[in-house]
Structures are given as structure tokens and as C-alpha cells.
């Protein structure tokens, strides 16, 4: 293999963003006809590397070679023209347009006067869809398709050009098992035709099924490349997690207070059903499951953003009706949402104003907001949570992810909640701040808050939780205490496999 010219080769790629060195001299190559898996935790630099590959980011240092030629790719279009195609995890399709139009968007076949050549368009798109074994036609409207089928449209789009390298970013995140089989066939087909495939995924099992080599990124640098046939999951995990992050299991015995929150038989249409659990004050309960298992939706229901179709919520033994975030906050439930920037922060406002946002109505002197009272609250939480900002006037949009998250947490602590729900506490946060946030969550429990942590990262759930609730397709599969949980049983529970090895109905 060593004599082959790589389809794509990256050498010493460095990319920095204000305050973050996202890629630190990463080198990586894909041979023609090879599936090269790229692994790493969230924030390890995978997505930045991909954006460099796809021409969306320019590297600060380093070079990109395609079939031995040095190239620069300034836009996604240029990357595509060079034969590098990226299949996004987040779909970028025009929902109101037809499948065929989406596949050829930007390169629609034309007739005279710039009119679209519809017969040619449909014929060409139809041929590609047939090759992919798609069960929908080129004239279907993209908005009507399932997420999996939309992904197929993305893949079809990649096949319209003579791709030398195709990058798949978490392609199976929303696919069913049957659809995965089809996807793997497509990848093998690409491989057979000498295309280099970069396959990015979290899922070990898939990586060992499909890849030839595995490269691991951690903290923005390349930690090693392994030949799939000669390695095993342990070796890969070792490289991925390293020893830099203390994610040992939580062995602290919780100092349990009374039950703060009890949920009985909570259901919400198709999203989740029959959810019952208790959270004591002084306890951290982790919710673990795959994306789409209904965890975030439960949090949103507890916070009044969704209306449950059945079930009851008890706080301190008293049944409460939570119809809106306003009533959730009044009842002492706070939510640190999954997407900090979209749901949690007002990025154009300063640090102080973000922290006091929910209670600014109570901080008045006459008709005006009291500056002094606000600054006092900000100072208190800056010190308590060790928020690193030059002063309270700093716009929240300029802070690092970890400090932004602390602002959101500070905002809710200042409301003195009984129950604090933290959804994906460390998403997009660098490793150093991660452990600070973890420590903070443990501290909060020790101070008597009832804390719910929702996370898609197993080490995180194991590290912070006193109890873990495993969810699968909107249902609670199993509840574990910190002592009894093992990675195996947890993975089985969230994959819908119950204790005796059968699949859940």
C-alpha cells in the first residue's frame, strides 16, 4: 500500500480560533480504495479538520495534497471541483425543492435561455437514486422525506461528481439498521471504484465493520493511526481518551436528602412514554441514551416547554402543574439547555445581564434596574464558579465555551432552584474546562441541589452520576446505581437490549 499515491493527504495542519488551538499539526491520509476512519471525542477537532478538507476553513499552517498535487481550497465549491466531497451530519438541503433539484443544486442541466432541462435532470437523478436503492423518486419533495432518506439525498449529491475522496460525517446517526446495511454497501461500492473514503463516527462497532485504518484525534492533535485488522476496541479507546482527563468512576457516596423531584408515568405523544423516576436533593441522576432517545424532550417537559399527554410531576411531595418556563422557574426547576448559544445565552449581551436575565424584574430601585444589585450577583457567581472574564461588561459571545456554560449555570443558581437540569453539560467545551464543569456539578449536589445530567458521553455520565437512567426510544430501559453499572450493561440498555440479551419490544 505504501507505494500508492494517497487520494488525499494532509500535512501538519494547524488551525486556531480566538482562544483555541483547534488543530495542532494534524497529518492524515487516505489511499484510493481505502476506508479510513477518523475518531475522537467531541471537541477533539474532527469537525474542524473536516471543514478544512471541505474548503470551509483555511488552515493557518500545513498543506493539502490531492493525488500528490498540492492544492488550496478556498470554498466548498473548489473542494468539490478537486474531487473532495463532504456528506454533512447536519443536512443542508432545500426542503421545499424536489429530490432531483437538490441533487443537482448549483449544476442544474440547462437548455437554451437558461431554462432547466427537466427530463435530463430527472433521468440523471433517477439513475443515481436507483444505484442507491432508494425507495423514493427524483420528483419527491425533500421536506416530505424521513431524515434517513434525506441523508440518502446528500449521498446522491456526492455521487454526481467524480469524487476522489468522500468524507462521511457521522452518517449513521439517524439511520435504521436496514439503512445502515445499504449505506455500507454504498461505501464498499465507492471503495471498489478506487475512491478514498473518510469515515467519521463515534460507533466502534461500525468502524470495525467498515474501515481499513483508524486514526484518532485528541485535543486537536493526531494521536496515532492503527490498522483495523491488527487492533481492538481497547487500543482505540486508549488513544481516544488518553489520560489527560480524569473521568474515573464516581465513587463518592451521596449524602441524600429527601426526594426533591418525583415524576410518575410522564408521557408526551410519540416522544417518550411512561417515564417515572425520583431525584433526591444532594443527588446527581444521569440520563444516558442515544440521540433521539427522548432525554432532552423529558427535560423540556419538566421545564414547561412541552405539554405532557399524561403523568404527574411532584416537587417536595406536592403535585405541581408546569405549563411554561415561567411556572417551572417559580416552582424551582431550572434548565441548562443543550445548545448553549441558541437556547441559553443572549450572545450580544454582557456577562452580568445574562446572569441576571431571569430575575432582573426583582432587582429594581423605583422604575429602574439597580446596577449595584446586579453587579453584586454577578460578582458572587463569578467568584463561586470561577468564571474567567475581564469584567462584567464583556459580551458573552466573546467568552470560551466553558465560561459561557458557567454563565448559564450561574444564571440558574442565582434563581435558587431545587432541581437543576443540565443537558449536555460539556458539549463543545475543551478538555480542561470539562473537568471543571464536572467538579462543579458534583459540588452542587453536595450543596443539596437535586441535579439531573443528560449526556451522550458515557465517561461523563459515569463520572458525575450517583444513579444512571438508561433510555431507549422514549422509554426508561433500566436504572443503575453508580456501584452496579458497567459499561457493557449500560451500552446494552441504551441499544434496547435488556438483561437477558433479548431485544426490547
Amino acid at each position, binding site marked *: 500500500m505504501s507505494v500508492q499515491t494517497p487520494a488525499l493527504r494532509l500535512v501538519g495542519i494547524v488551525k486556531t480560533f480566538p482562544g483555541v488551538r483547534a488543530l495542532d499539526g494534524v497529518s492524515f491520509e487516505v489511499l484510493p480504495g481505502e476506508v479510513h476512519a477518523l475518531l475522537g471525542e467531541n471537541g477533539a477537532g474532527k469537525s474542524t479538520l473536516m471543514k478544512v478538507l471541505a474548503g470551509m476553513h483555511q488552515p493557518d499552517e500545513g498543506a493539502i495534497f490531492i493525488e500528490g498535487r498540492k492544492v488550496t481550497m478556498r470554498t466548498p465549491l473548489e473542494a468539490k471541483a478537486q474531487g473532495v466531497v463532504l456528506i454533512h451530519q447536519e443536512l443542508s438541503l432545500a426542503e421545499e425543492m424536489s429530490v432531483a433539484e437538490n441533487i443537482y443544486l448549483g449544476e442544474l442541466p440547462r437548455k437554451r435561455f437558461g431554462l432547466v432541462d427537466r427530463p435530463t435532470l430527472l433521468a440523471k437523478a433517477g439513475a443515481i437514486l436507483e444505484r442507491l436503492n432508494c425507495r423514493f423518486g427524483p420528483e419527491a419533495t425533500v421536506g416530505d422525506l424521513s431524515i434517513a432518506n434525506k441523508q440518502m439525498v446528500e449521498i446522491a449529491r456526492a455521487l454526481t461528481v467524480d469524487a476522489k475522496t468522500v468524507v462521511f460525517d457521522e452518517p449513521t446517526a439517524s439511520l435504521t439498521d436496514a439503512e445502515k446495511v445499504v449505506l455500507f454497501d454504498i461505501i464498499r461500492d465507492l471503495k471498489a471504484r478506487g475512491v478514498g473514503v473518510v469515515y467519521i463516527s463515534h460507533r466502534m462497532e461500525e468502524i470495525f465493520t467498515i474501515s481499513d485504518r483508524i486514526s484518532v484525534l485528541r485535543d486537536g492533535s493526531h494521536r496515532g493511526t492503527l490498522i483495523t485488522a491488527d487492533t481492538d476496541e481497547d487500543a482505540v479507546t486508549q488513544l481516544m481518551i488518553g489520560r489527560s482527563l480524569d473521568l474515573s468512576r464516581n465513587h463518592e457516596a451521596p449524602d441524600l436528602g429527601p426526594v426533591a423531584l418525583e415524576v410518575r408515568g410522564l408521557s408526551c405523544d410519540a416522544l417518550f412514554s411512561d417515564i417515572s423516576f425520583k431525584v433526591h436533593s444532594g443527588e446527581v441522576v444521569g440520563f444516558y441514551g442515544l440521540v433521539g432517545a427522548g432525554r432532552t424532550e423529558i427535560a423540556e417537559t419538566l421545564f414547561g416547554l412541552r405539554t405532557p399527554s399524561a403523568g404527574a410531576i411532584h416537587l417536595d411531595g406536592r403535585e405541581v402543574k408546569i405549563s411554561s418556563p415561567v411556572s417551572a422557574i417559580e416552582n424551582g426547576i431550572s434548565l441548562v439547555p443543550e445548545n448553549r448559544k441558541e437556547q441559553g445565552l443572549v450572545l450580544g449581551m454582557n456577562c452580568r445581564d445574562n446572569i441576571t436575565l431571569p430575575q*432582573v424584574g426583582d432587582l429594581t430601585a423605583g422604575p429602574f434596574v439597580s446596577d449595584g444589585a446586579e453587579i453584586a450577583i454577578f460578582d458572587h457567581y463569578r467568584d463561586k464558579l470561577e468564571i474567567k472574564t475581564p469584567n462584567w461588561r464583556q459580551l458573552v459571545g466573546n467568552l470560551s465555551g466553558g465560561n459561557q456554560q458557567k454563565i448559564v449555570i450561574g444564571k440558574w443558581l442565582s434563581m435558587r432552584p431545587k432541581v437543576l437540569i443540565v443537558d449536555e453539560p460539556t458539549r463543545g467545551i475543551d478538555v480542561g474546562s470539562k473537568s471543571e464543569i464536572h467538579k462543579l456539578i458534583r459540588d452542587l449536589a453536595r450543596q443539596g441541589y437535586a441535579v439531573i445530567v443528560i449526556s451522550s458521553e458515557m465517561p461523563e455520565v459515569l463520572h458525575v452520576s450517583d444513579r444512571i437512567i438508561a433510555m431507549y426510544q422514549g422509554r426508561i430501559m433500566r436504572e443503575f446505581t453508580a456501584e452496579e453499572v458497567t459499561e457493557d450493561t449500560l451500552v446494552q440498555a441504551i441499544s434496547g437490549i435488556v438483561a437477558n440479551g433479548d431485544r426490547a419490544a
Partner: protein
Amino acid sequence: MTTSNRTKLIKRGAIWGFILLELVFFSVAGRFLSLSQTQFMDLDNMLLLLKQSAPIGIIALGMTVIMINGNIDLSVGAIFALSAIVMLDSQTWPIFQGLGELGVIPVAWGLALLTGVALGALNGLIVWKTGVDAFIVTLGSMLGYRGLVFMYNGEQPTFLLNWTLVDLAESNVLGLEFPAIVFILLTVLIWFLMTKTVHGRNAYAVGDNREAAVNAGIRVGPHMLWNFILIGFLTALSAVVFYSASGSVNPNDGGLYELWAITAVVLGGTKLTGGSGSVINTFGGVIAIQLLRKGLGHIGADTETVNLVIGLILIAVLFLDRQLNIKGKGELRI
């Protein structure tokens, strides 16, 4: 960080720099081109300018609040006309005949303001309860309210001559006439509202990130309703100030006022997408437009060219603003 601070400073100061530029330009150009002997920067001329700015200016203050909030109100021109009709016509209503020329004034003003508040509240309620975009809702109410104006008196203008009212409207303090005083006072008041009160704080938060505002327990629907009521009130107040002196409303009056108000707000640097902006800078935007009109008139340009120049300047300003914003951010080229 220093660059972002500098950018912010440039953006805040830009409108005042522009006004200064206008003053210098028209003063110098006026020497050579003006047909009249008066200086452009004559005190009386400037006081007159302030008075003339008031009708659009008062509406623009409300528009600033609405736009910071992430909404827009296209119906202000029609609300302006309808409030004016109510103010003038109500003075002739038989039930108020006993009040006399002076006594009827507060009643007429009150009814006009109530009209503005009611029409604004209707806009706000529809936006809140249906969740339809404010642009669409107020586009509809712009047509609807204008329809009401025509239903009231057909194509005929509505007249009223109340000399006590005219005298009151033309009274002045230290040379500042009634409309100018109202405009300045309101600018200060709304500035306090937006920068010092909870309502103002929430307005910025809702406009910047509505989802985060909902999650922070802000009642976004009622909040937006209050802002529509405020702009309705201010628009009616603008009509009160203007028509108290004039005494005659044409059914087409207030046409395009919504666009002039939006132009002034945007010139003042408020973002169309909401979340940022300043009432003081809107004041600057209003003055800049009025200076341009007067200045071009002063140097003998046709009234037709005025709109063309203002249009070009608006586009240039937004282009510069965009350049300042994208510097170093690696935004996608289109």
C-alpha cells in the same frame, strides 16, 4: 477585543460624524450655491429643522423599540392618519359641544391617543396569539387601517379650525416649539426605558435570542404586545403634535411614514434582525435625514433628487456597516 471595541465606537459615532459632515458640507456649499442670503447653520433654521423632524422622529422612537425587539411595524402611517382624524373630528361631535374650544382639547387628544393604543394593541395581540411574523401582520393592518381612514370620510379631507388649539400647538419655550419639545423629551424618556428598566433589558434579550428569552422565563408574547401598544401610542402622539397646528387631514396623510421611520432607525445603526440599537442614535438618524432634505433644498436641488440621494446613502451606510461587521469573521461570500 480592542478591534471590536474600536468597531463599536465607530458604529456608535458614525451617525454623529455623518451629521457633522452634512453641516459642514451644506454650510460651505451653501455659500456658493444658495439663492437665499441666510446661513445654513442659522439658529432659527436649526430650531425649525428640529420641529420638522418631530412627526417622523416620534414614530421612529417607537420603531426603534419595535426593531430592537426583533419585530417591525408597517402600519404606523395609517395609525397616524386615523388618530389625526379622530382628534380633529371628535371636536365636532355633539356630545362634546358643551366643553368649549379649550375644554375639548384634552378630550380630543385623549381619544386620538386611545385610537393609537387600540390599533397598536390589535397588532400586538395578533402577533402574540397567532405567532404570525410582525411584518405580515402589520402589512395587513397597514392596508386595513388605511381602509378605515377612507371609510371615515371618503376621499374628502377632514377639517377643523380650533384657534385655541393652534395657539397651544404653536407655543414655544426658549424658541423650541411644541413638537420639538415633545420629540426631545420622548427621546430621553424612551432612552431611559430602553437602557435602565427591566422592560428595556427584556426587549434587547427577546430581539437578540427569543428562544433564550423564553427559557429565561420572560413572557415574550405580552412583552411584544406592550411594545406594539407603545408604538401605537407614540404614533398617535405624533399625529396629535402635528395636526394640532395644521387642522386638516387628507386620507393619504402619513403615507410612507413607516418607511421613513425605518430608514431613520436603520441609519441610526439599529439592526433589522433585532437585539441591538439605540434610541439616541435613532434621534441622530432622524436629524440626519431632515438635514439632508433641508440642505439639498438650501443648495437648490430639486425635491425629487432628495429621495434619490437619501436612498443611495442608506445603501452605502448599510454596506459600510456590513464591512465593519464581517471584518475578520470569515463570513461566507455570496
